[in-house]
């Protein structure tokens, strides 16, 4: 297994810079997920690591060796493509055998290794099927098998689950996670799906327009988004964001924040906050409590009952819409007035530039990190 290090990687197409200097160190056995909206450069970055795209500037190191100019096949990586890219005229066995055959491995050893991998992936009954005869999930497994047989130092996945239906995606997600635990291979995984990112990653790299917005464990990103982009991107339903002004720095490391119709006091250690400065108040739907004595009032517009939870879309008196997550037994329906309390220790505050303000309390789950 291997470490991967990106040092200020850049990619320029013609005159446009697609990747604007990405630095990242990936430890052995780590599962790193690149996540971001489409066009953020996450796939390009993966392809640069794979060697399918040239690196315009910066260094790529695998196990401490610079591999910028090394052929893809010699970097010791294996990649699973979004379209799977199986060879349609070869059966499953030949698909997995292809790289081994090119590497000149003896027949008996190839057979042995493919047999082992097929057993792990439950592909044994399909070894002489062609890709065209397999279902989406089976093709996916063949693509993974083709990567595993090479015994690579690093696995690269390019949105591997996006062509599967929702049920299968959930199942493959679990399979991939357990496969990673079993093989212990360093893995880089690209996705636009934050559920995949949250559930599988050791660390998530949030990319936006070729720049790293934040790197952290899934819970770090969730509980301590570094800026507005990450706050909006991570979490479903997304965080409620309300324009606000700082009314007064209160004593004991907290600050009074005023939005259109109410004010809350947020614990923060940020120095130099001035009264009247614009800010953005963020609060996740699950951190708003329905409370008859609450300071925030609104009118339920839509109630989405998902069974386990209920999502209330609430219109505040100034016209802003927020989403409130409550229990599945909530019976508030449309056009009901309700009152709420924002859990102040879970509120986020962003300055005018979109950067998160320093907090005075640490999330219990992150205390050790």
């Amino acid at each position, binding site marked *: 297994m291997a470490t991967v290090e990106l040092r200020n990687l850049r990619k320029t197409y013609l005159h446009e810079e697609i990747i604007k200097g990405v630095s990242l160190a990936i430890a052995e056995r780590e599962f790193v997920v690149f996540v971001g909206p489409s066009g953020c450069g996450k796939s390009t970055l993966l392809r640069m690591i*794979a*060697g*399918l795209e040239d690196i315009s500037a910066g260094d790529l190191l695998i196990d401490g060796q610079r591999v910028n100019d090394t052929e*893809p*096949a*010699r970097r010791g*990586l*294996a*990649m699973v*493509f*979004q*379209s799977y*890219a*199986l*060879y*349609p*005229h*070869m059966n499953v066995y030949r698909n997995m055998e*292809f*790289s081994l055959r*090119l*590497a000149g491995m003896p027949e008996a050893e190839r057979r042995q290794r493919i047999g082992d991998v097929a057993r792990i992936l439950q592909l044994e009954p399909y070894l002489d099927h*062609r890709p*065209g005869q397999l279902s989406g999930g089976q093709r996916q497994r063949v693509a993974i098998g*083709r990567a595993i047989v*090479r015994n690579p130092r690093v696995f690269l996945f390019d949105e591997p689950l996006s062509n599967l239906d929702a049920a299968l995606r959930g199942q493959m997600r679990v399979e991939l996670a357990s496969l990673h635990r079993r093989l212990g291979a360093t893995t880089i995984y690209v996705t636009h799906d934050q559920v995949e990112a949250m559930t599988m990653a050791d660390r998530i790299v949030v990319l936006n327009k070729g720049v790293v917005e934040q790197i952290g464990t899934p819970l770090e990103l969730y509980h301590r988004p570094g800026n507005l982009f990450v706050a909006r991107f991570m979490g479903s339903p997304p965080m409620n964001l309300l324009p606000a002004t700082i009314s007064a720095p209160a004593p004991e490391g907290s600050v009074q924040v005023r939005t259109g119709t109410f004010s809350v006091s947020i614990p923060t250690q940020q120095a130099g906050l001035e009264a009247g400065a614009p800010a953005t108040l963020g609060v996740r739907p699950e951190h708003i409590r329905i409370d008859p004595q609450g300071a925030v009032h609104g009118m339920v517009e839509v109630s989405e009952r998902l069974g386990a939870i209920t999502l209330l879309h609430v219109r505040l008196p100034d016209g802003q819409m927020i989403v409130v997550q409550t229990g599945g037994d909530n019976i508030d329906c449309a056009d009901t007035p309700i009152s709420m309390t924002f859990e102040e220790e879970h509120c986020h505050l962003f300055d005018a530039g979109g950067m998160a303000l320093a907090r005075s309390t640490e999330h219990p789950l992150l205390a050790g990190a």
Partner: protein
Amino acid sequence: MDKVAGHPPVMASPAGSAARSRGLQGFVLQSPAIMLLLAWSVVPLLMTLWYSVRNYNLVDPTQQGFAGISNYWYLLTDPDFMTSLENTAILVGGVLAISVGLGTLLAVLYNEEFAGRGIARILVISPFFIMPTVAALLWKNLMLHPIYGVYSAMMRAVGLTPVDWLSRYPLATLVMIVAWEWLPFAVLILLTAIQSLDTEQKEAARMDGAGMVAQFINITLPHLSRAITVVIMIETIFLLTIFAEISVTTAGGPGVASTNLAFLIYSRALLQFDVGGASAGGVVAIVVANIVAAFLLRAVARNLET
């Protein structure tokens, strides 16, 4: 079938007669087209069969009556016939080998990015738009002519003696000319096929350690196999009946060195005025074409299945 199975009560008793009347209706509606096709294909076939067993010579009206199999006998025992069959095979095989082989390489080449690719693509396809007679004349008089030809001039320029290609190597020269005409077709079909190749497949092969040659053999060629079969089938159909090029350049000569089956039939009918013998040749040509077609169709069907 599913619909029928889904409504058993409706279809229970009158099923047979309803289906029969629908079949009859279909036949009636289709019959004008079928009749026209029959008239155009079966009538000439029957006439050819009829003439092939008759004594019928345009310059000798006294030769008449039933000839039995003598027209066939005369043709099949004629050494020219075997030569013409061989020539047909060489023409078809040679042109196929050149146009498919070179066409595949050119298709791969023209799929790559390079400056002026658009113009180059038009140029490589343009010979296909030149009609066979003109193409043959062009090669005969402008390019290969021992005195005025461009190649002769080039050979003289480096001190070589020009070759009279069409009389020294008539069949090989014809293969070259016809291949020049058909290469664009192969490139066109194969290029469009190559463009549908998934780039991720090639990238996967690259990551698997395949170099350019290994990618070509393991990814590109299998992907092209259907298109190649189609090219072979269509070209064979046309190449079996090459006529204009031969008529314009060598007139089948010297001797019968460049006479193929089509030209042999023509020379029997319109140079020797032997309609009976020519018809026998026509029947043989039909048989040959059907044998080839049977093989081709089987190969194509197998290739198009998966």
